[in-house]
C-alpha cells in the first residue's frame, strides 16, 4: 500500500472579485516510502497549490475536494481539524524561501525544538538534544543550535529548515523549490542531502520545482503539471526519452543542456485562465501537434506504458499517424500570443497577452 496517495484533488480559490479559480484539477498520484517524486511545471501550473493542499495550508478563500490518504487514511476528511494532527508528524514541508522565513529573534535550536513541544514529541532538554542531532543529520554542527538565523549562510539556513521539517520524524517530506534561490554548488549539496535522507530514513520525498534537470537527477518518478492538471507522469527516464505529451517534450526542449547542441526552443503563449471553463485540451493553443479532437474533448490520463500515463489525444492514435502529427504545427500557430516567435507568419493577429490575475494566496492585487 502506498504511503501517500492523492486522489482526484481539486482546489478552488475565490478571489475578491470574479469567478473562482480552479487552481488544481483532478490531481492524483501515489508514493511509497523512500521514493522520490517530482512535481514539475511552470508558474501558475498548480504545483505549489497541490502540496499546500496536502498539508491543509490553504487560505480561507480556498475550497478543496478529493482525498489525501496517508497510510490509507484520508487526512482531509474532517477539514482543518483532521489535518492538524498529521501536520508535521506525518507530512512535513520545506517551504519556498524557507531560509528567509525563519524567526529572526529565536535561536535555531529553539525553532527546531518548537514543533516537537507543540506536537508532544519531546520537551525541554530532550527536545534540545534531538535538535542537535537533527542539525548533525543535515550536515551542520550541533553548536549551530545556539546561533541566530542571520549568523548562518543561505545554504546552512536551508539545511536548518530541513532539520525543522524533520523535527517530528515525518514519513513524507514535501519540498517546494528547495534550491531555487541557491547557488549551483550549494544546490548540489542540498540535493545530495535530500537524496541521502530519503535513502537513509526511508522518507518519501515530493520535490516541487520548475527546474527539470533537478528532477531528472534526483527523482525516480515525476509528474508534469499544466493549468492545474497532471498532463504526464511516469519514470523520469521515460519522460525524457519517450515523452508522450507535447508539453513535456517541449519543456525539455526549452531547457538548455550544458553539452547539448540542439537549438533551445521557447513555447509562445501563456497558460489559459483558470477561472473559466476550458473546452478541450488546455494546451491546445500552444501545442505543435494538435488535431481535431483537441479542441472539443478534454484528454484524460491514459496508460502509455507500465507506470507511465499521459493526457493527450495523440496517445490513442496508431504509431504511424501519431508520428506524422507530432510537431506538425508551427509553434504559436494555435492562436497563442506573440512574444518573439521568429516566424512573422505565426502571428495570427490576436490581441497581445494582457492582464494578470490577482495573487491567489492572499487575494491581493500583485
Amino acid at each position, binding site marked *: 500500500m502506498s504511503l501517500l496517495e492523492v486522489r*482526484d484533488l481539486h482546489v478552488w480559490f475565490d478571489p475578491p472579485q470574479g469567478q473562482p479559480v480552479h487552481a488544481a484539477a483532478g490531481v492524483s498520484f501515489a508514493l511509497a516510502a523512500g521514493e522520490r517524486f517530482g512535481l514539475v511545471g511552470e508558474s501558475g501550473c498548480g504545483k505549489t497549490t497541490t502540496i499546500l493542499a496536502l498539508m491543509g495550508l490553504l487560505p*480561507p478563500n*480556498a475550497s478543496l475536494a478529493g482525498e489525501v490518504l496517508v497510510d490509507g487514511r484520508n487526512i482531509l476528511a474532517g477539514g482543518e481539524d483532521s489535518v492538524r494532527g498529521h501536520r508535521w508528524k506525518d507530512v512535513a514541508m520545506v517551504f519556498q524561501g524557507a531560509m528567509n522565513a525563519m524567526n529572526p529573534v529565536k535561536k535555531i535550536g529553539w525553532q527546531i525544538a518548537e514543533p516537537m513541544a507543540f506536537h508532544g514529541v519531546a520537551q525541554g532538554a530532550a527536545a534540545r538534544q534531538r535538535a542537535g542531532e537533527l542539525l548533525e543529520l543535515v550536515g551542520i554542527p550541533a553548536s549551530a543550535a545556539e546561533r541566530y538565523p542571520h549568523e548562518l549562510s543561505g545554504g546552512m539556513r536551508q539545511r536548518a529548515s530541513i532539520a525543522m521539517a524533520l523535527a517530528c520524524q515525518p514519513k513524507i517530506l514535501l519540498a517546494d523549490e528547495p534550491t531555487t534561490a541557491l547557488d549551483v554548488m550549494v544546490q548540489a549539496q542540498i540535493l545530495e542531502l535530500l537524496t541521502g535522507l530519503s535513502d537513509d530514513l526511508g522518507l518519501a520525498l515530493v520535490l516541487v520545482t520548475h527546474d527539470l534537470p533537478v528532477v531528472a537527477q534526483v527523482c525516480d*518518478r515525476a509528474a508534469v503539471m499544466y493549468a492545474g492538471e497532471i498532463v504526464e507522469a511516469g519514470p523520469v527516464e521515460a519522460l525524457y526519452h519517450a515523452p508522450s505529451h507535447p508539453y513535456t517534450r517541449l519543456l525539455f526542449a526549452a531547457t538548455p543542456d550544458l553539452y547539448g547542441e540542439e537549438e533551445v526552443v521557447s513555447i509562445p503563449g501563456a497558460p489559459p485562465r483558470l477561472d473559466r471553463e476550458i473546452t478541450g485540451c488546455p494546451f491546445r493553443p500552444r501545442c505543435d501537434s494538435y488535431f481535431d479532437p483537441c479542441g472539443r474533448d478534454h484528454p484524460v490520463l491514459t496508460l502509455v506504458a507500465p507506470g507511465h500515463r499521459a493526457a493527450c489525444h495523440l496517445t490513442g492514435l496508431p504509431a504511424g499517424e501519431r508520428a506524422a502529427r507530432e510537431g506538425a504545427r508551427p509553434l504559436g500557430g494555435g492562436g497563442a500570443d506573440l512574444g518573439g516567435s521568429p516566424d512573422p507568419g505565426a502571428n495570427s493577429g490576436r490581441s497581445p497577452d494582457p492582464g494578470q490575475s490577482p495573487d491567489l494566496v492572499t487575494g491581493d492585487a500583485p
Partner: protein
Amino acid sequence: MTTLPAGEDLALAEGEVPRLQRGGFFLRVLRERKSAVVGLGIIIFFIVLSLVAPYISPYSATQQTCRVYAPPSPRHWLGCDDGGIDMVSLLMQGGRISLVVGFAATFVAMVIGGGVGLLSGYFGRWVDVSLMRVTDYLLVIPDLVFMTVIAAVWGASLLHVILVIGILEWTSTARIIRAQVMSLRERVYVKRARALGAGNARIIWRHIMPQVGPLIIANTVLTIAVAIYLETALAFLGLEDPTVTTWGTILEHAFERTAISYGAWWAIVPDGFMIAGLIVGCFLFGQAIEDALNPRLKVANLSVRRWRLRPLVGRGPDAI
C-alpha cells in the same frame, strides 16, 4: 512569484481603466471599503455645511436672538449659548473657521513635511541626517506646552494657531514620507532611470511623486483630524483669539461661563459631537486609504475562517 500569467483572451475592454491609475485607486478604495464611504461622506458633509452656512443659518451667529442659555425648543433646535446666540447658527459658523484652521494648518504641515520627507528620503546621507535631526527636535517638544509659550509670547491669533499646529504636525508626515521614498529609491525602475542618466528632478517628479501621492493624501486626511483636535485644545485653553468663533472657542465660552453648573448641556455636547464627528470621518477615510496602500496590514491570513471541503464528485481516477 505566485501570480498566474493570464491567457490570451483576457483583453481589457475599450476604455476600461486599469487598476493602478491614480483616480481609479481612490474609486476602488471607496468601492471596497464601506468605512471609506462613510468617512468621506462625513468630511464632505462638513465641508458643504460650512460653505452653505451663511445661507441656511436660521439666525445670526453674532446677535442675541433668544434668552441666555435657553434650552432646545422648536424655534431653537439646540437652544442658545451664554450670550443668547442660537446654537445651531453658532455651530455652523464655528465649523467654517474650524475647518479653515484645520485645512490651513494641515496644508502647512503637508508642504513642510512632504518636502522634508522627500528630500531626506531621496538624497540621504548628510541631507537626511541634518533634516532628521531637526525633525527629531521638533518631535519631542510637547505640543501644548509649545503652543502655550507661543501664544504667551506672540499673542493669540488665528494665524499663530495655524502656524503652530503646522509646525508641530509636519514631523510625523516627514517620517512617513521619508520611509516610503527611501524604499522607492531602491526600486529597480528608479535605478534604471538613474542608469539611463535621468536627473534627480525628473526621477522625483515622474517616478517617486506618483507613488508617494496616495500616501501623502492619506496622511493629509489624518493630519486634518489632528489639527482640528489641536485647534479645539488651544481654544479651550484660551490660547486662541476669543473674538473668533470656532468649535473650540464655543466650548471655551461654555466652560468659562458656567454652562455646566447651569445644566446647559446643549452648549457643550453638540459642539463636542461636531468635533468628534469630523475627526472620526477623517480617520475612517484616511485609515481606509492607508490600509489599501499596504495590503500586508490585512489580517486575512490569521483569520479564524478556514478552507472549505467540498464533497467529492465524479469518478476517482486511478492513481499512478
